[in-house]
C-alpha cells in the first residue's frame, strides 16, 4: 500500500463520522422545525396530516430499503404495517401495559414474525419473491378476518385504544401525539439513512446490482437480505403503531395488500434512487388523495391518470427527475464556465 492510499484509507472513517454528525444535526433541526409548527399554524388538519405522513412515510421509506436499495420487490410489506397496528392495539387493550413497553413488545413480535417469513421468502427470486410476500400478506389478512374473538374480524379493533400517560406524555392529546409522531419519524429516517449509508447498505446495493458477484466475494447474500427484510419490517411496524395511535384502533385494511400496493406506488411517485424520494412520494400521495376525494367521486380515475403520467410520461419518480435535472444543469454550467 502506498503512502497516498494509506492516507485515503485513514480519511474514510473521519469522513463517515462528520457525515454522521451532519445527519444528526439535520435530523435535529427538522425535528425542531416540525415541533414548532403547531405554534405557528394552529390548524388541527395540518397536524393530522403530518401524523399520517409520519405513519406512511416510515412505511414507504422502509419499503424503499427493500425495493430501491436491495432490489427485493416486496408485495407484502404492508403486513408489517398491519402487524404493528394490531400488535400495539391489542397489547394496549388486553394487557394495559405502559405505552413504551407495548411499543417495544410490538417491535419484538414483528422481529420474530419477520425473521420467520423472511427466512422463507428471501430465498426466492424476483417475481416469486413478490408473490410469496403477497401470499403471506393475504394469509395474515385472512387470519385477522377469521380470528374474530381476538381481532374483531372485519370490524377491526373497536372501542378505542387506551393511551395512558407516561413520563408526562399523554398520547390522547393531539399535540403530544403530533410531537411523538414527529420524533419517531425523524429518528426512524435517521436510522434508516445510517443503514443505507453504512458498509452494509453498500453491500445491499451490490446484491441488487449483481448478487452472483456479491456471493463470489464472500458475502452471505441470504443473510444480508434477511437482515434488511427484518430491519425494514421493524420500521414499517413503527409506522403501523403511529397509525393505530392516530385512529385509536386497527382495521383489517391496514393489513390488506392495497397498503403494500400504495407503498410501491409512493416509492415510484417519489423516486427510488434518492433516500428521501419515498417521503416526497408520501406527501404527494396524501395531498393528492385528500384533494381528489374532496373534488370528485371518481377518485380512482384521477389517481390512475396521474400514475400513468408518472409511469409512461416521466418514466421515473419525481425526486429522480429533480436530481437528474439538477445534475444536468450543474454539468451544463461547468461546461460553459
Amino acid at each position: 500500500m502506498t503512502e497516498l492510499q494509506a492516507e485515503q484509507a485513514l480519511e474514510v472513517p473521519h469522513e463517515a463520522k462528520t457525515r454522521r454528525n451532519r445527519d444528526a444535526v439535520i435530523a435535529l433541526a427538522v425535528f425542531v422545525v416540525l415541533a414548532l409548527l403547531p405554534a405557528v399554524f394552529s390548524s388541527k388538519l395540518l397536524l393530522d396530516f403530518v401524523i399520517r405522513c409520519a405513519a406512511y412515510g416510515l412505511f414507504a421509506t422502509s419499503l424503499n430499503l427493500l425495493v430501491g436499495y436491495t432490489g427485493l420487490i416486496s408485495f407484502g410489506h404492508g403486513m408489517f404495517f398491519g402487524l404493528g397496528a394490531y400488535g400495539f392495539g391489542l397489547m394496549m387493550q388486553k394487557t394495559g401495559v405502559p405505552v413504551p413497553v407495548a411499543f417495544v413488545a410490538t417491535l419484538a413480535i414483528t422481529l420474530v414474525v419477520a425473521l420467520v417469513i423472511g427466512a422463507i421468502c428471501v430465498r426466492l427470486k424476483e417475481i416469486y419473491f413478490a408473490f410469496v410476500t403477497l401470499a403471506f400478506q393475504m394469509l395474515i389478512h385472512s387470519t385477522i378476518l377469521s380470528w374474530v374473538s381476538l381481532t374483531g374480524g372485519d370490524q377491526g379493533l373497536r372501542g378505542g385504544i387506551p393511551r395512558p400517560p407516561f413520563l408526562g406524555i399523554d398520547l390522547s392529546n393531539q399535540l403530544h401525539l403530533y410531537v411523538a409522531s414527529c420524533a419517531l419519524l425523524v429518528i426512524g429516517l435517521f436510522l434508516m439513512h445510517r443503514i443505507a449509508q453504512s458498509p452494509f447498505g453498500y453491500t445491499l446495493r451490490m446484491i441488487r446490482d449483481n448478487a452472483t458477484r456479491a456471493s463470489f466475494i464472500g458475502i452471505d447474500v441470504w443473510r444480508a437480505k434477511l437482515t434488511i427484510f427484518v430491519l425494514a419490517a421493524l420500521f414499517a411496524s413503527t409506522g403501523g403503531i403511529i397509525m393505530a395511535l392516530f385512529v385509536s384502533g386497527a382495521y383489517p385494511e391496514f393489513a390488506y395488500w392495497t397498503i403494500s400496493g400504495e407503498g410501491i406506488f409512493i416509492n415510484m411517485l417519489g423516486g427510488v434512487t434518492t433516500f428521501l424520494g419515498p417521503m416526497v412520494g408520501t406527501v404527494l400521495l396524501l395531498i393528492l388523495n385528500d384533494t381528489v376525494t374532496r373534488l370528485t367521486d371518481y377518485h380512482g380515475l384521477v389517481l390512475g391518470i396521474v400514475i400513468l403520467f408518472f409511469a409512461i410520461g416521466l418514466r421515473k419518480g419525481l425526486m429522480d427527475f429533480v436530481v437528474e435535472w439538477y445534475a444536468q444543469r450543474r454539468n451544463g454550467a461547468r461546461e460553459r464556465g
Partner: protein
Amino acid sequence: MDLDALTGCLASSACLVTQTTSGFIIGMLLFLVAVGLTLIFGVLKVVNFSHGAFYMFGAYFAMTAYQFSGSFALAMLCGAAGTAILGLIFERVFMSRVYGADVLMQLLVCYAFVLIFDDVVRMIWGPEFKSMGMPAAFQVAPLFIAGGVVPPYYLLLIGVALVAAMILGLGLARTRIGKVIRAAAHNPGMVSALGINTGLIYGGVFALGGMLAGLAGALAAPVRSLTPGMGFSVLIESFIVTVIGGMGSILGALIGALLIGMIRSFGSLGFPLFTEGLMYLFMVIVLVSRPTGLFGKEVA
C-alpha cells in the same frame, strides 16, 4: 372451524357431488382468467395486474348485450369480443411503451388501469350490484346426480371452459400460429429477424388473454353479482393459480385452478372464515417446496 360439517359432507354422496360441481365451476372460471394471465406472462414476460378488469368488462358487456338482444349466445360473444378489442388497444397503446422498462413501471401502468377501469365501470353502469339473471333457456329443473343438485348451466359453463382449454392447448401445440407464438416467447429477437411482426403477435396474445378473461366474466355473469371491483378477487385468485401451476404453463393453470376451486368449495364447509387463508397457505407451501410452481420450468 367446523370440521364436523366437512367430514359429514365427505361421507354423503349428495353433498360430495354438489361441492365438487361448485368446485369445478369456480375452478373453470379461474382457469379461463389464469390461462390468459399465464399466456401473457409466458410470451410478453409481463405480469398483467389489470387482468381482473377484463373479467369485469366481459361480465358487464355480456349483461348489456343480453339486456338489449335477449340472446345468450350474443351476450357471450359480446363479452369475449369486446374484451379482446380492449386488450388489443390496451397492449398497443399503453403496455407496449413499458416493455423495456422496470418491472415496477409495468406494474404501475396496470395498477393505474385497475383504478381507471373500476371507475369507468362505475360511471357507465353505476356503483350498485347488478345481476344479469339466468337466461330462459337454462331455467329448467336441475339435474340430480347421486342425490347432488347440478344446475344445467353449470354443465354448460364447465363444457365451454374445457373446450376453450382444448382449443388453446391444441392451437399452441399444433398450428403454425401456435408455433410462432411459442417461438416468440422463447426468442423474440430471432422471430422478428425472420420477418415476423412481433408487435402483432404481442398484441394478439394480449387480445387472446383478454378475450379468455372476458369469456370467463360473461359466463360468470348469470351466476354471480356484478359490481365495479369484481375483477379484483378473481385477479388475486388467478395469480395464486398461475403461481401454483407455474407461470407460463397451461396445464399448470388448469390443475392449479381446479385445486383452488376444490379448496374453496370444500374449505368453505370446514373453515368458513378461513377459506381464503387456506388458499394462501397452499400457495406458500407450494412456493416454498417448488418455487417455480408445480408445472413451471426451472429458471436458471
